[in-house]
């Protein structure tokens, strides 16, 4: 049996769509993917639904044009939505129930799991996911499987991930206009963490940083469960904006400077040419140059600040010293030069790039870490909807 799933990310800089195939007995495989430059999105918020609809139509067209070996056309009717942005909040929540007998039974566990679904959100918030962390029994905590244990009060610690309903509905509206139905919205960084961490890293403690265009998400795994996550409204677009402001360049020029020339760490003096010609200068004007040191300073200050915010949040939650497997960088911003060195310095932990390890089909992609969230979303789809095909494949039916 073959199941097909699709996931889409309406990012600040890129709109990414990927389709994966799950065959019985084999690993999930991305069979098609396409990414185009986004418009109408800023800081992960949709500002122009019409432009986003056009982006979705373009990416659908692009993916349909990328024919695989076995199919002539692919009609994508629905896709899982990968969401990010500072409107997403993650709240710890503990539910508790009285144990019916003297020992915990499956029924008690079901009861406490049901109780944790009862968390009431304001009407403008929508639940994205509820993560079960650990159980507690009376004064004892950190229990992974309470069945059969003796006690009076059973607790379940959870993380409730929720987002702004209006922001998510805007995405649904834009997709609907492009005849694409959006299925469950999924939090980008928790998807990315799922895709790039192995079980051992999840047990030993790891921090995943998903550096997007409009926001940066972080997720901490410890003891095998998601211990904390958050999204901060600072992303790669801020770096470009800072460069544009510092050097009075266009956004396109600052993007190019960021991607091709800048470094997150300050290089020693004389390590590279001291001045960089401004890309895309008019041939009618004298070529402008910018100081490499100044450029790196702008980028370094922004990223150091971002990392220090995340570091403080982890310290406040007593999690920083538990990250024995280090830091994993994902997202489009992860490819920035020197980012790993800066992260290593700021967190005092080993750092690696996070390429999706549980999904095949990305070997041709130059920066697979930017597909981590999408890959995680496809894994979620496969895990939860294994017996329910989500797409219709029409092999040349309408040709």
């Amino acid at each position, binding site marked *: 049996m073959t199941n097909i799933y699709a996931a889409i990310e309406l990012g600040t800089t890129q709109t990414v769509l990927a389709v994966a195939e799950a065959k019985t007995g084999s690993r999930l495989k991305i069979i098609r993917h396409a990414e185009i430059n986004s418009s109408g999105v800023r800081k992960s918020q949709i500002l122009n639904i019409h432009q986003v609809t056009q982006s979705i139509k373009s990416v659908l067209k692009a993916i349909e044009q990328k024919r695989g070996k076995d199919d002539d056309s692919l009609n994508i009717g629905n896709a899982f939505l990968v969401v990010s942005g*500072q409107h997403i909040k993650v709240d710890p929540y503990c539910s508790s129930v009285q144990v019916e007998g003297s020992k915990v039974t499956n029924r008690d566990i079901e009861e406490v799991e049901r109780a944790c679904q009862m968390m009431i959100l304001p009407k403008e918030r929508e639940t994205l996911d509820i993560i079960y962390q650990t159980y507690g029994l009376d004064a004892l905590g950190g229990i992974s499987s309470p069945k059969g244990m003796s006690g009076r009060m059973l607790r379940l610690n959870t993380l409730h991930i929720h987002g702004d309903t209006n922001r998510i509905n805007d995405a649904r509206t834009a997709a609907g206009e492009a005849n694409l139905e959006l299925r469950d919205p999924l939090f980008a960084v928790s998807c990315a963490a799922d895709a790039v961490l192995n079980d051992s890293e999840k047990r030993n403690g790891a921090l995943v940083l998903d550096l997007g265009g409009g926001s940066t998400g972080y997720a901490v795994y410890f003891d095998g469960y998601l211990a904390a996550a958050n999204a*901060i409204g600072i992303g790669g677009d*801020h770096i470009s*904006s800072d460069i*544009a402001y*510092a050097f009075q360049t266009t956004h396109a020029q600052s993007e190019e400077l960021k991607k091709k020339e800048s470094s997150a760490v300050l290089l020693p003096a004389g390590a590279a040419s001291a001045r960089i010609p401004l890309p895309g200068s008019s041939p009618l004007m004298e070529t402008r140059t910018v100081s490499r040191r100044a450029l790196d300073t702008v980028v370094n200050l922004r990223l150091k600040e971002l990392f220090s915010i995340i570091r403080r949040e982890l310290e406040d939650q007593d999690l920083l010293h538990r990250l024995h497997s280090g830091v994993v960088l994902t997202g489009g911003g992860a490819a920035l030069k020197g980012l790993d060195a800066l992260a290593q310095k700021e967190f005092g932990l080993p750092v690696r790039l996070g390429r999706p390890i549980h999904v095949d089909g990305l070997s041709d992609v130059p920066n697979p870490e930017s597909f981590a969230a999408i890959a995680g979303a496809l894994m979620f789809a496969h895990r939860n909807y294994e017996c329910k095909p989500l797409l219709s494949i029409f092999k040349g039916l309408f040709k």
Partner: protein
Amino acid sequence: MNQVSPILLIGVGGAGCAIAHGVNRAFGESMRHVLCDTDAVSARENSRFILLGGDRLSGHGSGGDVAQARLAAEDSKHAFDECLDGVRLAVIVTSLGGGTGGGATLEILKHLRQLGVPGIVFATLPFSFEGEERACRARGITSMIEEAAGAAIFTQLDNLIDNTDNMAEAMRRAVDTLASGVTLFWRILQKPGYIRLDTERVKKIIATAGRGRFATVSVQGPTRAGDAVDALSRSPLLAANQGPVRSILLGILAGDDLRLSEIGTIADGVRDAFGRQASFDLATVNDESTFSGRLSAVLMLFEAGRAQADDGEAVSATGQKRRRRDANPLSQGPKGRGRFTNVEPTIYNGEDLDVPTFSRRNIILDI
């Protein structure tokens, strides 16, 4: 028609119960309030009392253990449900440094949030002479309370005393100061004057207000407006070194003799003293029976909030609506929001992170 108040006052812990009880007495009327503690001795006459974690702690207190207090509050959280009928806003008073004040407040806030009731917390931080352990315990819980509450006003007790105070006076003054602040805040909500601040508006303000500080002043005489500004500007409770101000909430309470020019003087003076760029909300109370010949003001400064009216307008000191001067985000603080001019700002510790870091830190680039 007997209207039920949409606001509930909750006193948490020993000191919180004392303050809430004091506020109730000061208000002189029956107000919706509930006291709760892990220690049964905090129960007061004529006040509803919830014993937290009765089964767990048998009413003997948490012994300074924040974790026990949290569990106790978790055990008893549903006891609050029947007090919350029709409640739109909860005002919580407490004292941090012991067990129940911090631990139970946190759990109560979470429970309120699950029920869709926002809370504003007024909390005292311990005197320095109470020792590093209590200070540490209080510090550890403040950020969590701040996050759970939306708006949290922390008052450092050291700022309330002078060296001549004895222990009893210091404690009494601490309770009185907090109680008077909460009482005035309560009056603003319950007895609005010509410039009113209703519960829904306060809900909106506190939803993102973050950490705050407050002071009150009571003055009389022909120069009372200027005296009020002077006293507020010099109040150690509002010291500028405590953090940047993003949002100002000013309440002016007086009798029927309150003049428009006095409102203008105080509002302008406060904005000059604490930041013209901060968003500003004003409310007045005209209550001749309580404030005859006297003028009181309560001033709250918040570090993270952007108290913006629904229509993008603010109420001016003279009561007229006018276009907010800082409606264009580019005019807020340093320049450089650039592409992020019209999107929701990223505010962290009162700083607008959409502005380039180098610009906020005044770093001059050798371009």
